[in-house]
């Protein structure tokens, strides 16, 4: 399986994501932002960082990069896409995921390890886990406070589209949401960083449970 990792100016978790893809036993493929080409990959990870310096709003400018056209097509055709942190913000700005990420309620950057609960295994990025299973994953963000209007939140809950939920909410997110999926369930956005815990040398490889899921979940 070939997994692409987009690289925008300001992406800084791209190499971690490429490394994690290698660790999970797939072939990593870098996808440069200016090239409108997904190079035939089977899944795409939009990594964390500060694309375009977070100017205007996190993800607002990245959303119009050359690589995003084919990525949107891929997502709309059911291709598995995972947005991590800034990648989650980019996917929300691109309307591939509902809602938006606001500044953390307490106005501080949060950099910590947090416990999250897997809420659904009905996505390609959690298919290998168990509902109710708790993972400890790193978070590092200033705008991780998930917001959607009341109607959208109710729909996300009804349709089992909350993917990860914080055990202790670090940023004020609505309904303790740490990750959601698209209506088609193939696009997933999460604020925590599974790629940063993908090797015992990093203290844990619990993040591989998320990333490796796609090998099963995508049915490739």
């Amino acid at each position: 399986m070939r997994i692409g990792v987009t690289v925008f100016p300001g992406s800084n978790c791209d190499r971690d994501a490429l490394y994690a893809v290698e660790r999970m036993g797939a072939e990593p493929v870098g996808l440069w932002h200016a090239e409108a080409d997904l190079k035939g990959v089977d899944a795409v990870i939009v990594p964390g960082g500060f694309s375009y310096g977070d100017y205007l709003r996190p993800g607002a400018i990245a959303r119009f990069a050359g690589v995003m056209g084919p990525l949107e097509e891929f997502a709309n055709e059911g291709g598995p896409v995972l947005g991590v942190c800034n990648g989650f913000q980019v996917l929300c700005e691109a309307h591939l995921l509902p809602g938006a990420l606001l500044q953390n309620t307490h106005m501080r950057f949060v950099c910590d390890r947090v416990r999250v609960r897997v809420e659904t295994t009905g996505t390609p990025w959690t298919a290998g886990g168990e509902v109710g299973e708790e993972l400890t994953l790193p978070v590092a963000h200033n705008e991780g406070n998930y917001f959607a209007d009341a109607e959208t939140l109710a729909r996300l809950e009804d349709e089992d589209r909350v993917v990860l939920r914080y055990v202790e909410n670090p940023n004020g997110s609505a309904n303790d949401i740490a990750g959601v999926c698209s209506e088609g369930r193939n696009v997933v956005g999460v604020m925590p960083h599974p790629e940063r815990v993908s090797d015992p040398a990093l203290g844990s490889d619990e993040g591989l449970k998320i990333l490796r899921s796609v090998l099963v979940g995508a049915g490739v």
Partner: protein
Amino acid sequence: MADSLKVRVLVRPKEGILDPQGEAVRGALPALGFGGVKTVHIGRLIEMEVESADEVDAMCRRLLSNPTIEEYEWEVVS
């Protein structure tokens, strides 16, 4: 050179959207002795010089604001 128009766009959080910057400033003003400040909301001012104002609204909708969380208004100032 074509004449240019100066356009001022104001983007701010929609009503009811948490505004932690505004809250922090609201807390700081009384601490400096400025009483009677009931609410503070912080938005963003974007000034542009454009050849025509025809597409400003589209710019606001597509890039300058995020309609999920923000509202905007704009005017030609000169």
